[in-house]
């Protein structure tokens, strides 16, 4: 039996035992938890705006800072990864996911010291998000600017 026949047999057995992700269930859980996170963020925003009477810009910054802090704390307490396992994109897509990716990288590399460990590795996962954010902001900004000139 030659190697090609072997490959065919492997492929058949592997294809017969493909692992399916429960996409619908995951989507619903992500929607639910992502929604709850957004509601909490809205509540903070309203609190800063209406109870403390702050500016809109300052309030939304404070809201982001609060959410980042809470996610970071939950990461440190070892809760966020469990939440993430349940809700998937629901906890990774909001700003809390960004916070978790930075805090978890920082925690992971603290044994290698402050500079070579924490500071070097902190953006290991979040770096891609920042690059994507900056590039897409640049593209979107240009489009808006051009539309502004043309219209």
């Amino acid at each position, binding site marked *: 039996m030659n190697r090609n026949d*072997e*490959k065919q*047999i*492997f*492929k*058949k*057995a*592997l294809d*017969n*035992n493909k*692992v*399916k*992700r*429960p996409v619908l269930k*995951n989507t619903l859980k992500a929607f639910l938890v992502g929604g709850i996170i957004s509601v909490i963020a809205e509540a903070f925003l309203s609190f800063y705006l209406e109870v403390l009477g702050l500016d809109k810009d300052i309030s939304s910054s404070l809201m982001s800072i609060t959410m980042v802090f809470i996610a970071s704390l939950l*990461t*440190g307490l*070892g809760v*966020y*990864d469990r*939440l*993430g*396992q349940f*809700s*998937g*994109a629901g*906890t*990774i897509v909001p700003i809390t*996911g960004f916070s*978790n*990716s930075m*805090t*978890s*990288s920082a*925690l*992971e*590399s603290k*044994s290698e010291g402050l500079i070579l460990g924490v500071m070097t590795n902190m953006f290991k*996962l979040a770096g891609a998000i920042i690059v994507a954010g900056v590039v897409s902001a640049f593209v979107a900004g240009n489009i808006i600017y051009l539309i502004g000139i043309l219209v």
Partner: protein
Amino acid sequence: MRKVGKNSVAFDNVFLHSWGTSCGPKEKEGPIGTYFDVSFNDLYCDEKTWETAEMNLMRTALVEAIRKGNLSISEVELAVGGDLNNQIAVSNYLMNDFPIPFIGIYGACSTAVLSLINASTFIDSGYGKYIACMTSSHNSTSERQFRYPTEYGGQRPPSITTTVTGSGVGILTNKKTEIRISKATIGCVTSSGENDANDMGRTMAPAASMTLKQHLEDFKISPDEYDLIVTGDLSLYGSKVFKDILKEYKIDVENNYQDCGLMIYDLQNQDVIAGGSGCGCASLVMYGYICSLLRSKKLKKVLVIATGALLNPVMVAQGKEIPSIAHAVCLEGVSE
């Protein structure tokens, strides 16, 4: 010692003198947790970093194997072993503390059996009386090396396995004991065409099935020869692929096959997703559980096929497949 068939070797006088096992909390709570010698209550294993924690696991298992065998450190004439860290750091740094000649090996999760085969050839060629085989893995050192930080909140897919925190050390000898290492088959690097680091069980299944097929051909035996055939860490999905490939070759293992990754954890009640994996998985099950059953004569003849995904994150990022390997060793109970 003599070569048999294409990939195999039959040993004359290789016996297991003693063994030591150490594990983390999840492995202790598992269905065969009571078979392990020492357990730690958390993943830090009384240390400050994950790497030193894994060193402590291996040190504990080695010291336990030496103690249970009524030996002194100076009587161990050679150690063969490895782990999953870059430059097999845990084994190398640990052996800095022991005046024992050391051969470091890397076979990913197949190291448990690879070390046993290497040590057996040394014993049978007259190198010495006592040789230690050691392997370890740690959930957190592996996660950070091959996947994500421990506390990262990304969702793990249903195919992912849980790296076992634990170490198994066996000490081989040329004097008769209750357990004999009689045969071994060395596997070829086999590619399944898969490149998903979150689905290693399926990736390794072709290598495991080819090693078993070769083993049966080389020794001209059928799977019924064994009370039990175990694979290292194919876990839930990989073990199905393993059985399916063997069916194509008309090899039936339906009645005497198990996977260490499914034996070490309770998949229903423990949060381990598709089962256990890592060097520690095969070595804990082999030394802790199987050898105990061989000693108490509940099992007579067992074939352990340890499977390793030879994953390199850089190669995978470059779109290359994950090659795998599997090595098999036969453990037999010796009648008086």
